[in-house]
């Protein structure tokens, strides 16, 4: 094993001078659990893994998956996990200027001293941050150029379910649930290290595990037009699945960030997977099957967690919380476990209908933040096509009830550029917003009406791997912009605030998510030319990306505005996500049927 090299504390002290939010880099939160040379006798026998979240501390610390893996690895006596986040621009500059490598928070171990580096990638626009972190650690970004046996570099998370665009950078990928496979991997890393085996042996060994994709073992053949001709070998990699969530208790003593994180609360996953089947939704497919936690132990562990952390807010997470059968029982028990008004409960992804509104009133007694609705589309026709199972009347009834009982802030999510979308569907978005304002005028008192705030968030549809719409073309940016401008122009200005994601950003996101292994060169080039934090509007530079696609001789349209052929080999076909391609295709056909049925009427 390499000798572990660590950053000196006096140097850290000097580096932190005049840095924005230095609290991001100081560790020492309640709940940190890594092993330190002072407390562990066999410190240097331990396998060290860096859990890297390629975004800033405040975002990374809000990710439940990171806390779960941190907990599992550090509970094991032979393994240790330490956190690494993207330093903010100012700190990166300082580190680079002074030639200091990026280091972990816990023991300030330099990244290249770890045995294993694991990235959790939540979003395609974080790809450049991953490369940037490797580079700041003095590690070659390309897998094949990393001659040393250590560190090993891998990635997991929803943004790598199609591993191809990122395959040249990673030694291996972890597809699916991490809870069980992480320990299996670390055991093999230990064997590899302690018995001085060679890298091929190690990769062969882990390839036997579910969920491990090793790019080096596969070869892709292409047609001249850029489509895939053949993948060798054909055998698919099966996603790792934790069959029974109850086997893993919820993390009751998570790390409590010292500075304010984006989600500063006690987070509890009540259910994994979603049975709803919205045709655009990637999470809805890749986290299948639906697995729920048993309510009794959930209640016990949640109450214990609130006590242990001292948080005054708990958040129940899942993709569709209202589908958790005992949700009311759960809420009742949690709310009655603390003094009235002291604990607030939040539940994202709550389906809003009049039934659930009562539940929401219950949990938000005293603290009314706002209600969020995700109609996604303006017209019923469009909602049928995407299989978003909510009726306008149902939604409006719920909104009216909300206004009547005093809510003044509403947030609405829409998507534009959906398959088979027509101008009238865009117009219907405007009509729906008008109807909501009418309802507010009807239901809100004269005193309250001026405080009405409708926040509207509009996103461009981005077809994602493993969804029924994975074959669909993304709308071009000119169309998207004109659709958005139509909404902006026609929506009443008063009470309404509209947010819009840059359509060019969605285009790059789409190209990266549906890309093949040739896109890797583009990512590398973009990073070299300064792309990072691409998910931050202030930093996203379309030109860099456009330029790099051109340089690589790739048409962005090949991955975005093109309808993929139904019998085409897709870059992510090498992964078995648990849902068959036939099923997805059938669902895609059904969306077209909706269209035909409507035409008949």
């Amino acid at each position, binding site marked *: 094993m390499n000798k572990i090299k660590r950053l000196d504390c006096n140097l850290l002290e000097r580096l*932190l*001078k005049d840095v924005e939010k*230095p*609290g991001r880099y*100081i*560790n*020492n939160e*309640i709940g940190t659990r890594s092993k330190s040379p002072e407390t562990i006798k066999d410190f240097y026998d331990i396998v060290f893994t860096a859990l890297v979240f390629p975004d800033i501390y405040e975002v990374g610390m809000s990710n439940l998956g990171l806390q779960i893996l941190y907990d599992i690895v550090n509970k094991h006596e032979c393994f240790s996990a330490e956190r690494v986040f993207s330093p903010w621009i100012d700190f990166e500059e300082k580190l680079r200027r002074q030639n200091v490598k990026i280091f972990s928070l816990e023991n300030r171990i330099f990244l290249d001293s770890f045995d294993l580096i694991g990235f959790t990638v939540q979003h395609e626009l974080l790809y450049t941050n991953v490369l940037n972190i490797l580079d700041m650690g003095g590690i070659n970004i390309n897998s094949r150029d990393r001659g040393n046996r250590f560190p090993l570099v891998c990635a997991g998370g929803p943004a790598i379910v199609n591993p191809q665009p990122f395959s040249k950078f990673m030694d291996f990928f972890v597809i699916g649930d991490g809870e069980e496979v992480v320990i299996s991997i670390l055991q093999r890393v230990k064997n590899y290290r302690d018995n001085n085996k060679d890298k091929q042996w190690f990769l062969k060994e882990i390839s036997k595990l579910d969920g491990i994709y090793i790019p080096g073992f596969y070869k892709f053949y292409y047609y001249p037009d850029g489509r895939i001709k053949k993948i060798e070998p054909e055998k698919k990699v099966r996603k790792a699945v934790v069959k029974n969530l109850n086997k893993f208790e919820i993390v009751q003593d998570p790390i*409590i960030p*010292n*500075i*304010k994180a984006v989600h*500063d609360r006690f987070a509890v996953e009540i259910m994994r997977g979603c049975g709803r089947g919205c045709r655009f939704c990637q999470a809805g497919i890749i986290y299948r099957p639906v697995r729920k936690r048993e309510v009794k132990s959930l209640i016990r562990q949640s109450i214990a967690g609130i*006590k*242990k*952390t*001292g*948080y*005054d807010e708990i958040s129940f997470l899942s993709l569709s919380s209202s589908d958790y059968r005992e949700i009311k029982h759960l809420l009742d028990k949690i709310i009655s476990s603390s*003094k009235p*008004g*002291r604990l607030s409960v939040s539940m994202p992804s709550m389906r809003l209908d009049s039934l659930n509104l009562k539940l929401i009133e219950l949990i938000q007694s*005293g*603290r009314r933040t706002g209600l969020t609705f995700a109609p996604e589309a303006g017209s019923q026709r469009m909602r049928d096509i995407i299989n978003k199972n909510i009726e306008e009347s149902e939604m409006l009834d719920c909104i009216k009830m909300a206004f009547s009982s005093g809510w003044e802030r509403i947030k609405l999510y829409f998507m534009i550029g959906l398959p088979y979308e027509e101008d009238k569907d865009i117009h219907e978005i405007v009509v729906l917003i008008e109807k909501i304002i009418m309802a507010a005028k009807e239901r809100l008192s004269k005193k309250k009406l001026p405080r009405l705030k409708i926040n509207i968030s509009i996103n461009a549809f981005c077809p994602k791997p493993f969804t029924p719409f994975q074959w669909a073309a993304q709308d071009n940016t000119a169309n998207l912009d004109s659709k958005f401008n139509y909404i902006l122009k026609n929506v009443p200005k008063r009470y309404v605030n509209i947010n819009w994601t840059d359509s060019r950003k969605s285009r790059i996101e789409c190209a990266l998510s549906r890309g093949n292994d040739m896109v890797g060169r583009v990512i590398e080039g973009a990073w070299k030319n300064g792309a990072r934090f691409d998910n931050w509007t202030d930093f996203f530079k379309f030109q860099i990306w456009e330029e790099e696609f051109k340089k690589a001789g790739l048409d962005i349209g090949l991955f975005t505005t093109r309808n993929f052929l139904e019998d085409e080999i897709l870059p992510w076909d090498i992964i078995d996500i648990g849902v068959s391609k036939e099923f997805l295709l059938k669902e895609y056909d059904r969306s077209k049927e909706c269209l035909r049925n409507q035409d008949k009427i």
Partner: protein
Amino acid sequence: MTDQKNAYETRIRFKFYKKDEFKYLSHLDISRIMIRALSRAELEIRYNQGYNPKPKINFSPPTPLGVESMAEYADVLLDGDINENEFKTKVNLELKPQIQISEAKKITTKTDNLMNEVAIILYSFKLYACSSNNESLLKEFYAEVEENLTTKSDFSSSIFDLQITPGKRTSDIILLKLFGYAKIFKEENNEIFKFNSFYQFFGNWLRKYGIDIENVKKEELFVMRGSTLRTPIEVV
């Protein structure tokens, strides 16, 4: 306003420090950390009645980011009859070593809000000068501190007093410990002493003599009682 003793509630004023890495945490971070520690210690803070109920805990004026403090204060209203030593022990168990309560005392007299009442803040500056500096420049520095800094500079009105404690002389570094009382001129515009502008001014001023600020620490806070200065713990 109930200032009578109530068997069912306890008002406590406590002093705590934040040092080492924790000097990089902001006032808001520190208050959040403290409230959660109290909650983990199963001490029930009273909440005010309102649209968004807030815990009844007030802190002394913020310490600038990057400055260690030995003198952070807070007043808290708790449910039940709590002994101050028990309070200190319980909460300290829930806090990291970098932030610990040093003193706690029940409030038995009428007190004003800490934020308003603090009159003077004592900062200490640890300075260093290379021994290669010429001796006459240092002499000039000593003279200037005593004559001009406290009386003629832009900040003379905010410097209450200066004491210089010469540090030990090592082979190549002379350490100086200088105490500066920095006053809040509240009487004028209720504005809190702008530490950062003073810090910048003082740093520039020192540079003329080849001296740098190595470390700043908030040492103590004082409130006025009659015409004397008292620490916040002394007056409750």
